[in-house]
């Protein structure tokens, strides 16, 4: 089976795959095929370059992005390492639907979170039942704004949510939060975050208990209160804190300072 046969097989079946191609520099026309959970196929011309591009290709695939990246001939990436060396430009093409972020609650935090989510490559849906708040004009960065309660959205397309996707519930309002949490827990979504103070969180747990959500497996899926402890205050900082938690959740990392650890940064 040639590289392109394997690529065609993945593209036809809708399974994620990325193709890296040297488009400028040493080895123009070399290819590397990147499939999550498998060793890469082909070579760009140097095993260290292959290793680095494989890692970056998986990240591009995760974000559903395609684009050009520049490396040194042995996969160097930092400006210091690239200075004075000939560079290799690599086009990484991804075949993956973009991950989705569903944000419930059209509040100040929503616009900032939607903006950061767009930078990370998400397709963003904003949902709120209040017509005056949930408008395309307030959230021009969102791909879709829905004026409705959470349940219809989950019923309609909750099954499209998977491990790469995120549900962020920012309403602070139990009559909206609880159905959104229930809806999200019924899907395979990888991240469920719910905003609120510790007091709100405690009260929410009582409400969830009343609603019959009691299993430890379900409760363990809820990132509540939402976000990493960065001391974030503004909507923008909070958006970073939430997105940082989503990334750490996906990679299974502790989100502590790199300085405090040892070993490889990208194992």
């Amino acid at each position, binding site marked *: 089976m040639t590289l392109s046969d394997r690529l*065609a097989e993945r593209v036809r079946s809708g399974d994620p795959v990325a193709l890296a*191609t040297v488009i400028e520099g040493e080895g123009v*026309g070399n290819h590397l095929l990147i499939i999550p959970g498998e060793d890469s196929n082909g070579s760009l011309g140097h095993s260290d370059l292959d290793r680095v591009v494989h890692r970056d290709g998986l990240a591009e695939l995760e974000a559903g992005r*395609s684009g050009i990246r520049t490396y040194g001939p042995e996969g160097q990436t930092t400006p210091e390492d690239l200075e004075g060396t000939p560079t290799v430009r690599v*086009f990484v093409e991804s075949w993956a639907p973009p991950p989705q972020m569903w944000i419930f609650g059209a509040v100040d935090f929503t616009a900032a979170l939607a903006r950061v989510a767009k930078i990370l490559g998400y397709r963003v849906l904003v949902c709120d039942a209040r017509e005056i708040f949930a408008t395309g004009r307030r959230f021009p960065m969102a791909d879709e704004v829905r004026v409705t309660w959470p349940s219809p959205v989950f019923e309609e397309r909750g099954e499209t949510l998977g491990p790469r996707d995120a549900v962020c519930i920012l309403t602070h309002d139990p009559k909206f939060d609880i159905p959104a949490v229930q809806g999200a827990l019924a899907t395979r979504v990888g991240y469920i975050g719910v905003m609120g103070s510790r007091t709100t969180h405690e009260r929410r747990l009582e409400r969830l208990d009343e609603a019959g959500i009691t299993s430890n497996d379900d409760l363990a899926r809820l990132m509540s209160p939402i976000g990493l402890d960065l001391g974030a205050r503004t909507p923008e900082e909070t958006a970073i804190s939430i997105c940082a938690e989503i990334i750490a959740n996906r990679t299974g990392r502790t989100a502590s300072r790199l300085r405090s650890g040892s070993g490889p940064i990208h194992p």
Partner: protein
Amino acid sequence: MKELLNDLDRWRTAGTRVALARVVDVEGSGPRGPGAAMAVSLEGEVVGSVSGGCVEGAVVTEALSLLHGEREPGIVAFGYSDDEAFAVGLTCGGTIRLFIEEFNW
């Protein structure tokens, strides 16, 4: 590239040589993003599109010169804002860069 797969298969089975052109970069407004692709067979059969009609003719010329050994695989640019750009422009005023190679891998 998904829409090209059946034709690429057909050409490969027939032993026909094919050039593949993929959009790798778009500056400013461009009609199609990275990954848009077209393929040109040695006989001059064309499938796919990279710009919505603005530069396809020029891409065919480049593809055939590649297959005839008159140029190397590499980047081809179209648009107004770039010195390396060809005379062919895009109606939207942006710049696109394509990578053109023989489909033999």
